[in-house]
């Protein structure tokens, strides 16, 4: 049968490729061949029978094992008498007593040559930090100090000249009125800031601890002057960027064999831990590195909807369990991990789980790797209850769970 033939200028000629009338036997054979496989009954959804041929030697395909490690060293340490946290604590509570110290590197003064200039008021103003209870009749004195020395032991530098006194926790923000007669020495201090070693806020009466926001204190000077033949009252503020809290030594002092590890709280205790995990076999995967912190059931309950962030840092220096100070540990400034919004509300919160980076265990156990342990810190916790953790000397200590999967064997 003749077919039309079309030749394309730029391509294949498809005219001759119209379906040919094959002998009936050919499609029948094609169909039969296809039917051999295509109509086989598929009893499973594939990929499983291949297991029959996945043969990789007598050691299997890799095994996952979990190891529960307990610390071989744990204690709690104090960051020292000086505390540079975002909260300034001033007051006393039992054996605890603390003072706040300030330093003004540069002053802002009104134009004293302005017409009708007269100082109308001077006061220290500091916003309150969130605190759990209003102090009872806590009276604080604001005074010049003989030094601004964060290395000093409590009570630190002595007060020289009282500038004013105020009740804490009565009005917002915390304000200490200062006599206007102080403006004269203020001018001298402004002229030579080094002539004022420091300022301090300390308890002179009552009990309780108030919490103020660090770095946000202002010394404000109100003054009158004449503008356009009219008397006008203005205020100028001097920021006080330098401050810290100095408190009494923490109690109970750590011994290294305590069954309770105190974390956070008014002394801002830190908890160093050290574990000795087994070396990760070459090529293995670390699937899990989880800290399980167990809180004592008698722990003070947190205020509802209040939580605290737990930070974990690496310790770089060798340390002993008898250590009671943070400084010798040589802790990294950067955190490894931060677990947000931890709160203790009862026995349901008795285990705090902190997921560590799996690479940490590999680093610890690698050849040449350094494992001096971890430091737990509660961020801005000194206005909340401390967390009392069970130590390795207790019956239910902190646990580090490490899970490792050995590598599958190679193809050949």
């Amino acid at each position: 049968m003749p077919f039309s033939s079309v030749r394309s200028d730029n391509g294949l000629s498809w005219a001759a490729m119209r379906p040919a009338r094959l002998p009936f036997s050919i499609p029948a054979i094609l169909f039969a061949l296809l039917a051999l496989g295509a109509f086989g009954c598929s009893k499973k959804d594939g990929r499983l029978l291949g297991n029959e041929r996945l043969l990789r030697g007598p050691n299997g395909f890799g095994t996952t094992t979990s190891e529960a490690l307990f610390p071989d060293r744990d204690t709690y340490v104090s960051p020292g008498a000086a505390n540079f946290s975002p909260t300034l604590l001033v007051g006393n509570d039992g054996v605890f007593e603390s003072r706040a110290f300030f330093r003004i590197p540069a002053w802002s003064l009104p134009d004293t040559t302005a017409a009708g200039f007269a100082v109308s008021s001077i006061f220290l103003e500091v916003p309150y930090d969130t605190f759990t209870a209003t102090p009872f009749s806590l009276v604080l004195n604001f005074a010049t100090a003989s030094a601004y020395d964060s290395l000093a032991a409590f009570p630190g530098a002595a007060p020289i000249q009282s500038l004013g006194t105020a009740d804490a926790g009565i009005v917002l923000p915390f304000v200490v009125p200062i006599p206007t007669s102080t403006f004269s020495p203020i001018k001298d201090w402004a002229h030579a800031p080094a002539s004022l070693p420091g300022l301090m806020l300390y308890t002179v009466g009552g009990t309780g601890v108030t919490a103020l926001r660090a770095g946000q204190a202002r010394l404000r000077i109100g003054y009158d002057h004449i503008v356009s033949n009219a008397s006008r009252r203005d205020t100028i503020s001097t920021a006080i960027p330098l401050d810290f809290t100095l408190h009494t030594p923490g109690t109970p002092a750590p011994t290294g064999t305590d069954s309770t590890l105190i974390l956070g709280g008014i002394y801002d205790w830190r908890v160093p831990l050290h574990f000795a995990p087994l070396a990760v076999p070459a090529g293995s995967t670390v699937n899990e590195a989880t800290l399980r912190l167990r809180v004592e059931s008698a722990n003070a309950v947190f205020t509802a909807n209040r939580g605290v962030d737990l930070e974990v840092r690496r310790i770089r220096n060798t340390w002993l369990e008898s250590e009671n100070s943070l400084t010798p540990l040589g802790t990294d400034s950067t955190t490894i991990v931060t677990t947000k919004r931890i709160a203790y509300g009862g026995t349901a919160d008795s285990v705090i789980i902190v997921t560590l980076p799996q690479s940490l265990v590999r680093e610890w156990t690698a050849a040449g790797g350094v494992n001096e342990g971890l430091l737990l810190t509660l961020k801005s916790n000194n206005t909340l209850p401390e967390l009392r953790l069970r130590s390795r000397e207790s019956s239910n200590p902190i646990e580090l769970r490490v899970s490792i999967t050995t590598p599958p064997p190679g193809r050949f």
Partner: protein
Amino acid sequence: MNSRRRKSLALTIAVAFAIALPALPPSAARATSVYSIGGLGEPQLDEGARVRALGGAGVAEFGVDLFSQVNPASTAGVRHLLLQGTIVPAYRRVSGLNGDSENASETEVPLLRALVRLPARFVLGASYGVGTDAQFRVERADTAGALSTTRIDGTGGMQLIRITASREFGPSLRFGIDHEIVAGYYREEWTRDFADTNLATSRDTLESRYERLGRWRLGVQGTVRGWTLGGVFETKRRLPLTSFQRASGTTVEAGGTSLTIPSGFTLGASTPVFSRWRATAQYRRANWERASLASDLVDLQALERLSFGVERRGKKAEESHSWRERLPLRVGVSYLQWPDLLPVAGASTIAGGTAGVKEWAVSLGTGIVTQDKGGTIDFSLEAGSRGNKDDLGVSERFVRAAFTLQVGDDSWK
């Protein structure tokens, strides 16, 4: 319905099945042979659909637009620029000892080739072919240690990149030479998900990589009284092998071993048997042996392929009275012995005993020539089985189609 329409309908159904074959079972696994999970992978036939339809017997093929991959001398008759590509969809059914079965399908491009005629009767060519395919996917529930589900995705295999030169010496003698670069790798991604949500998913990458080095293949063809005889010799090449094992934060590298691509040869003949019929046969052997690859997980033996095919040539348009006379018909049968000797069912290494994989296939094919004679489209369909369920725990039946498009410079003149 008259006879002509019935035949047309039957043809339409068959072609529709062939086209839809790779996509038939939506749940099918994407993998090559179940035996490619270990060893060198499934040996591929890097030939076009025409030679595949002849059972793979191509060592004595030659012509202005006919050639095979197995013999570099077969390209010597090419007169123009030729480009050829082949796509092979395959479908398989795997059966286990307890009566379970599952399906899998994949599509492979086993061959891409370009040839050009140069002055002084030289022909130069380049090609990409697939030697073995190690693609697989396995899912397994693991109970060793923590409960997990493991998925293993295997990829890679051997790829062959060939530069070919050939020349005719008179009408009866052709020589050819290949420089064959053995490329590729074997890679497995192991992903392990745990029932315990505290455990992070582990991912391991296992990779065996060998240096890309070349070897030589020498081919010859001679024609005497209608008989064409062909022969090929392949040289041996040692490829340094490096294994990598990577997991999160760690890499382990191990070298010092090697994969030796063995020497081999291919012999075959082709002869007319009737006026339009021609028969061709071939024997191919690659001398794989235990020393080719040091492994506890696979032993090696010689690869052997026996191929036999017959072709009824189509009549020229001016001589034919119907289309059926113009279409060629090709039928073939082949036997392949894989080089892999795999651990028997129940053994975890070759120390527990090995068994080979034997593959039988029948093939059928045809093709059409474009009106301008510059191009061809060939089609083949193969069906067969491989492996012994009693020895290896699973056996396999397969169907695969091949479509080859070949175009020459006549196509766009």
